[in-house]
């Protein structure tokens, strides 16, 4: 085990090279609906239990199933209204279980990235080949269903190994949503030297945290998202920022929540001159082509020897 993940160098939020998003925009805005399938009776992972109660633990299972029956359609319709394309964090087995949802998203030219096979199959304890097989399965499955080559990853249920980031770089991925150290994209260190972008995907503004960890109401969450945007917009004048709203249809798509969320999309997309409404892979591609090398040089220059406390 490592004392430090070693995936990036410390890089303070000042004196960084300026990012200017396409069209001179200040904030790159993307929305990440997690479209997930949770199994009722998954095999046991030695390091993490799927459900708290004995099988069949129907309450947490059916709570999540609500998204695929009800919530998804409400969220998708609302995003259509504001011209926001989703970047989907996808349990790729959804391509088999509910292709109707995948087809509806593909028809809207939404982006798909991998969130594992099922959100009840954790990566903990896998060897390198097993973990790589999850990535290869994801690439193949989404390509066969939609024709789209996936470029991003968010580990299923945020379960990682020390190999995860390198495996992404080795398999043609452009970005990872797994790390939460920043509000701007940045290069990750990879063994094979391939470019890989750490994409901001904030846990703190994730609807799961808002509703089920912090106990906020739909209105409080909507206000929080607007404040998040206001700050990132202000800072984006100095150097472009990224705002992601990670969502779950089984949470945001409930009858009492989708209305207040509408105000958020309305508010953010009304800042037309300043906001680049986009997808994660478009941000990653732009960043790799225009900002990556300069960032690497700036990070290298920012490194100074650690001080001794003596």
């Amino acid at each position, binding site marked *: 085990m490592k004392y430090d993940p070693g995936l990036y160098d410390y890089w303070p939020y000042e004196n960084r090279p300026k990012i200017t998003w396409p069209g001179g925009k200040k904030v790159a805005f993307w929305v990440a609906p997690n479209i997930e*399938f949770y*199994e*009722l*009776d998954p*095999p046991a*992972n*030695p390091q993490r239990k799927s459900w*708290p*109660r*004995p*099988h*069949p*633990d*129907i*309450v947490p299972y*059916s*709570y*999540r*199933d*609500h998204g*695929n*029956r*009800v919530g998804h*359609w*409400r969220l998708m319709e609302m995003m259509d209204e504001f011209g926001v394309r989703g970047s989907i964090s996808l349990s790729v*087995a959804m391509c*088999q*279980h*509910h*292709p*109707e949802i995948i087809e509806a998203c593909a028809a809207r030219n939404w982006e798909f990235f991998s969130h594992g*096979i*099922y959100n009840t*199959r954790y990566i903990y*304890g*896998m*060897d390198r*080949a*097993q973990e790589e*097989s*999850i990535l290869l399965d994801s690439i193949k499955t989404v390509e066969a269903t939609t024709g789209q080559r996936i470029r991003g990853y968010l580990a299923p249920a945020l379960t990682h190994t020390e190999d995860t980031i390198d495996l992404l770089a080795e398999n043609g991925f452009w970005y990872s949503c797994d790390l939460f150290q920043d509000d701007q994209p940045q290069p990750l260190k990879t063994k094979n030297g391939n470019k890989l972008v750490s994409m901001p995907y904030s846990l703190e503004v994730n609807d799961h945290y808002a*509703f089920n960890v912090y*106990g906020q*109401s*739909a*209105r*409080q969450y909507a206000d929080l998202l607007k404040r998040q945007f206001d700050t990132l917009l202000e800072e984006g004048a100095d150097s472009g920022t990224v705002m992601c709203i990670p969502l779950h249809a089984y949470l945001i798509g*409930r*009858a*009492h*929540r*989708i*209305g*207040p969320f509408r105000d958020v999309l309305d508010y953010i997309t009304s800042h037309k001159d300043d906001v680049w409404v986009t997808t994660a892979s478009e941000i990653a591609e732009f960043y790799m082509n225009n900002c990556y090398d300069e960032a690497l040089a700036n990070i290298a220059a920012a490194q100074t020897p650690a001080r001794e406390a003596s």
Partner: protein
Amino acid sequence: MSLPEDYLKYPHRSHGMDHTLYPWSNLMDRKPVKWPDDKSVALWITVALEYFPLTPNDGPFRAPGHMVTPYPDYRTFTTRDYGNRIGVFRIMKVLQKLDLKASAPMSVEAAKRYPALLEAVQKCDWEIIGHGMDMNHIHYGGMDADVEEKQIVDCLDDLEALTGRKPQGWLSPARSESENTLALLAKHGVEYVCDWVNDDMPYPMTTEGGPLAAMPHTMELEDRQLMVTLGQNEETYEEQILAAFDLLRQEAKTTGGRILHLSLTPYVIGQPFRIHILKSVLSKLVESGDIWSATGGKILEVWKQQS
């Protein structure tokens, strides 16, 4: 280190669900339902009348709301008892004034011990739903099927003997089911189950014991979930119920009648400092002129006629 090969095999990876209890279905694509008098939203109120013994049962887990401290947990026991003595009567008063119906999931033990409460419930014409013997009698995966069947049959028989009516609906204590619960409920004539939280409308289930309907008895706007578990205040509780009503009403215009389910817990909403918000929110719903108040059994009946 590696995981067993089976961990990367996916035997249920095919169209639909990973079980046979119900097929996948998109709510927005279903045949629209029409409620009586063309109301947009059926208001379904449930009031939980539970009995928590002072001696909690931990096999295999303790029901939410159960005793917390070492024995004897007088503080929790009496707080729950407050609901059945005081809180529920405040709720009744509010509902009666607004002429609103309700369904009450009731522990057999509460029905037996408190004849006056049972009488009051019947006087309000609330529908009684099976809710197990008490909050110690949990249904759980791996339990003996004969034991479970006896638990269910005893509960249904006792409620029928006490009230003169066999319960149409069922809410498992702690919403917990075994792999046999649904089949046993269907086998013994229960028409609808309230444990599943994956839909906003009823939907049919298939079990080895026969057909059954899942009713949308959600946790989303439950007083206990919002104001106790999540620590929200009364105004926030009301605001979210009204937001849900607005959305459902809107949706009803294009995709058919909807259900607004409110789960009330007498020891939560029945507190003197909270009861005003129930009065306030229900009055607003009634004033909209766009709700149909009914019991779960009645809502199911109207839904069944059209699907």
